[in-house]
């Protein structure tokens, strides 16, 4: 039975501000799930605290709205305990790149097979518009008393340096692109980052929908010339495989670096980088625990009241002292 969009939505009142980019992310995610046709009973969404975090409540899968900044840690815990789950973590930019920056880096080191989508709106939405870590130096969005005095981080490069094997950027109101990107991220074997440019009409009056869409720049025919463009359409091939030599890889990385710095008149979206064939954390665990995938932590203990089946004597043999038996 094919999934319908209505199957993956709940009927709760959605309380995001009118025009919020989060609506685009929600729709894209739900469409992606629908089109992928994954059993929604296997899908678990995790989110952090922030406006973005409510997304799990509007979506009819398992939905775990965690703590500010800790989304990735919760999500990794669940995925490792039950690798059969399809885990998608969703974070805010304050949540994921701010307070969660440490987990962001260390998740990259693990490369667990899951997807991480960041709602990047340049502000702390739910706490009323303070600058988020992606807000650029010197910018002053609506509710800042003074221009931002911190450098903005570059999530693409941060992810690259942390070891993410799939790094993409998309735009909340290009739901087609975003949906396809999410599908590819989910399909990717390893940790996939999708950084989503998300207008926050309430607090971010700089990177607005109109701005991304280029409504301040019109071509001869009067049509807006969007700032956002698809790098993959423009020929950027993100794939990096074990077969490539170091030089080829370096070149690719250098290009990703350059792309990631483009901003202003030309803003690339698309898959920047994808490593194929890198073992996932689950693969590496399996090398140590051969039964891991067949009999993961979540499956070992039966329900109800049972006796422990552990062979305690064997287990504790090295600690056992057989007195006077020497």
């Amino acid at each position, binding site marked *: 039975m094919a999934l319908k969009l209505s199957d993956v939505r*709940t009927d709760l009142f959605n309380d995001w501000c009118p025009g919020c980019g989060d609506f685009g992310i929600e729709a894209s995610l739900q469409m992606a799930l629908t089109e992928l046709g994954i*059993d929604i*009973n296997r899908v*678990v969404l*995790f989110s952090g*605290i922030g406006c973005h975090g*409510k997304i*799990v*409540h509007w979506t*009819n899968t*398992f*939905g*775990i*709205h*965690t*703590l500010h900044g800790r989304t990735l*840690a*919760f999500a*990794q*815990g*669940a*995925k*490792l*305990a*039950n690798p*059969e789950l399809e885990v998608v973590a969703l974070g805010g930019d304050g949540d994921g790149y701010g307070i969660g920056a*440490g*987990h962001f*880096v*260390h998740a990259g080191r693990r490369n667990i097979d899951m997807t991480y989508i960041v709602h990047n709106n340049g502000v702390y939405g739910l706490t009323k518009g303070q600058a988020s870590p992606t807000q650029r130096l010197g910018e002053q969005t609506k509710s800042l008393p003074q221009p931002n005095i911190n450098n903005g981080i570059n999530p693409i490069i941060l992810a690259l340096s942390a070891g993410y094997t799939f790094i993409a950027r998309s735009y909340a109101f290009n739901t087609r692109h975003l949906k396809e990107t999410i599908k590819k991220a989910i399909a990717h074997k390893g940790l996939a980052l999708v950084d989503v440019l998300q207008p926050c009409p309430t607090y971010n009056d700089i990177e607005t929908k109109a701005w991304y869409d280029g409504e301040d720049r019109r071509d001869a025919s009067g049509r807006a010339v969007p700032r956002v463009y698809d790098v993959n359409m423009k020929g950027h091939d993100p794939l990096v495989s074990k077969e490539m030599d170091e030089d080829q890889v370096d070149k690719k990385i250098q290009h990703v670096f350059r792309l990631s710095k483009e901003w202003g008149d030309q803003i690339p979206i698309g898959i920047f980088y994808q490593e194929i064939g890198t073992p996932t954390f689950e693969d590496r*665990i399996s090398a140590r*625990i051969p*039964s*891991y995938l067949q*009999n*993961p*932590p*979540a499956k070992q*203990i*039966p*329900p*109800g*009241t049972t*006796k*422990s*089946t*552990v*062979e*305690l004597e*064997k*287990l504790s043999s*090295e*600690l*056992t*002292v*057989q*007195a*006077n*038996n*020497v």
Partner: protein
Amino acid sequence: MNWKIGGAQGSGVDSSARIFSRAVALAGLWVFGTREYYSNIKGLHSYFEVRVDSNPIQCKVDRTSLLASFDAETLIRHATTVEDGGGIVYNKGVTETSIEKVDTINKEVRQEIQQRLTDKGLKADISGILEESRRRGIHLYPIPYDDLVAQTGKRIGEQQLSKLTRIINVLAVSVSSALLGIDKRYIDDSIRNVFSGKQRIIDMNITGAQVAYEFVSENYHEQFPYKITPIQSKDRLFISGNEAVALGKLVGGCRMQTYYPITPASDESEFLEAHENFDVVDGKNSILVVQTEDEIAAITMAIGAALTGTRASASTSGPGFSLMVEGMGWSGINEVPVVITLYSRGGPSTGMPTRTEQGDLKFVLNASHGEFPRIVLCSGDIEECFYDTIRAFNYAEKYQLPVIHLVDKAMANTNVTVNPFDTKYISIERGKLVQEHKDQDELYRRFKITDDGISPRAFLGMSGFRFWNTGDEHDELGHINEEPENRVNMMNKRMRKLETADTDIPDREKVNFFPASKTADITIVSWGSSKGAILEAMKLLKNDSIEAEFLQVRIASPFPTELVKRQLSKAKLTVAVEQNYSGQMASLIAEKTGIIIDNKIVKYNGRPISLNELYAALKNTFEKPEENRRVVLTSGA
């Protein structure tokens, strides 16, 4: 008999102590071995005390019967703890080392010792220390370690003596055991166990032991006053608190453990990691041990795992726990069963990482903002560490809440002989789970309001049982809900679980009560690792015709208010014994029952309570309660 060995951290003192202890255990005796060391990797002084008896032992004592050493520092620090008539095994080569030169000892302390020796007309070097001991009737055993090492080298055909330096440990052990009359076969077997897998080292050490035994029999015909005579005994475990908890986790069904390295907790995780694949009756099981980037990730990952139905836990110590409190609150409001094993150590802050303390009780009871139910178990000895670990998981799942299992450094790093754990009566109880089949159209209400506060639980990935969780106040489905009525219902529901648990849990799992044989003169209350010393002290008090009874609190939340009230309300003189500054259990009792504990015996110098000091303190307290409202114990080096 109380044997002690000292030496620089990292020089192998720990394996010596293990070898000695196991050998004694092989002889059928009971062993209680404690370890003191600095927060240092190599060079600073560490020591082990191994108490041995034909009856079970539960604590340490102050005086040493036989001190085994090979460096000067051990003599300087410990010679005075040897009892009159005891013995000292030492390195002939250090006799002339001056106190001044041992710069790993604090300068002021050195000066004091020099002064002491000078005052007695002794030289301010090891010879002075030895002479001081000799005057107390202590048997001195100067050992030419270098010669013995050389002899060993010769026998095993090793020219490079530098490769043999580490056998000096086993020489000290072997000299001790020879003096104590321990059959050398026990030592050999013990060497094989401790160095298991490393044949060359085993050979070297067994030969060394032979050389040492021969040396003793040639030089020390005279009888050392203590002898260890083998006795009949069943199989026992020789085990530490860390290991007991780890075994409890495996037996108790824990299948994922997260940790960030920290003393004295990480040994447990490393034991688990080393045993990650293990046998069950019908095949193999495994535990996934994840070293996380910090303790915040440790607790939140464990919670993520628990949501999938995995029995999951995180082990840590104070600083790590401090970072876990936000995560724990989330598991509280989302009713996720998760177990935190907290190895208490000297606080506050980094404090004294390798020293013991019971300073975290009130913190764990109140940790995290807002109010939610939690269960707090406090183990009193190494056997309880094992059984309580299993109970922790059962409670966590039955009442769907975080459980904190409080242990401490004293237990973690103590090695004792115990009877093998009995798993006959142990069950794994997973609590109220959803039924596989349910009405298709009915929405699954993860937080259904029930009389006992417990809602049937589903796991992530269970078909048809989709649910939501949020750290926000939520409705039965798990969606955010701030309405005042829902809020009150949900708070009541969650808090009700604590009443349910309190009703369910049998009294014997809440407290241990050790009665006096007649009306008690003194009622001791305590918790955690103070237990052992109290039980032994009670026997000594009885010899003095002081009747003591002892209430050991094993569960601090839900607090067994009625039980405690009942036991204490008729008490003549109540005394709390605790290893912290303020007497936290005494506070808790006052908070819950209004009963103000009359007297406190507290200790917070980082060293476990010794039998001698506790016995003396209790006796004084009994005799002059007014003058001893608060007694601070200070034994230990």
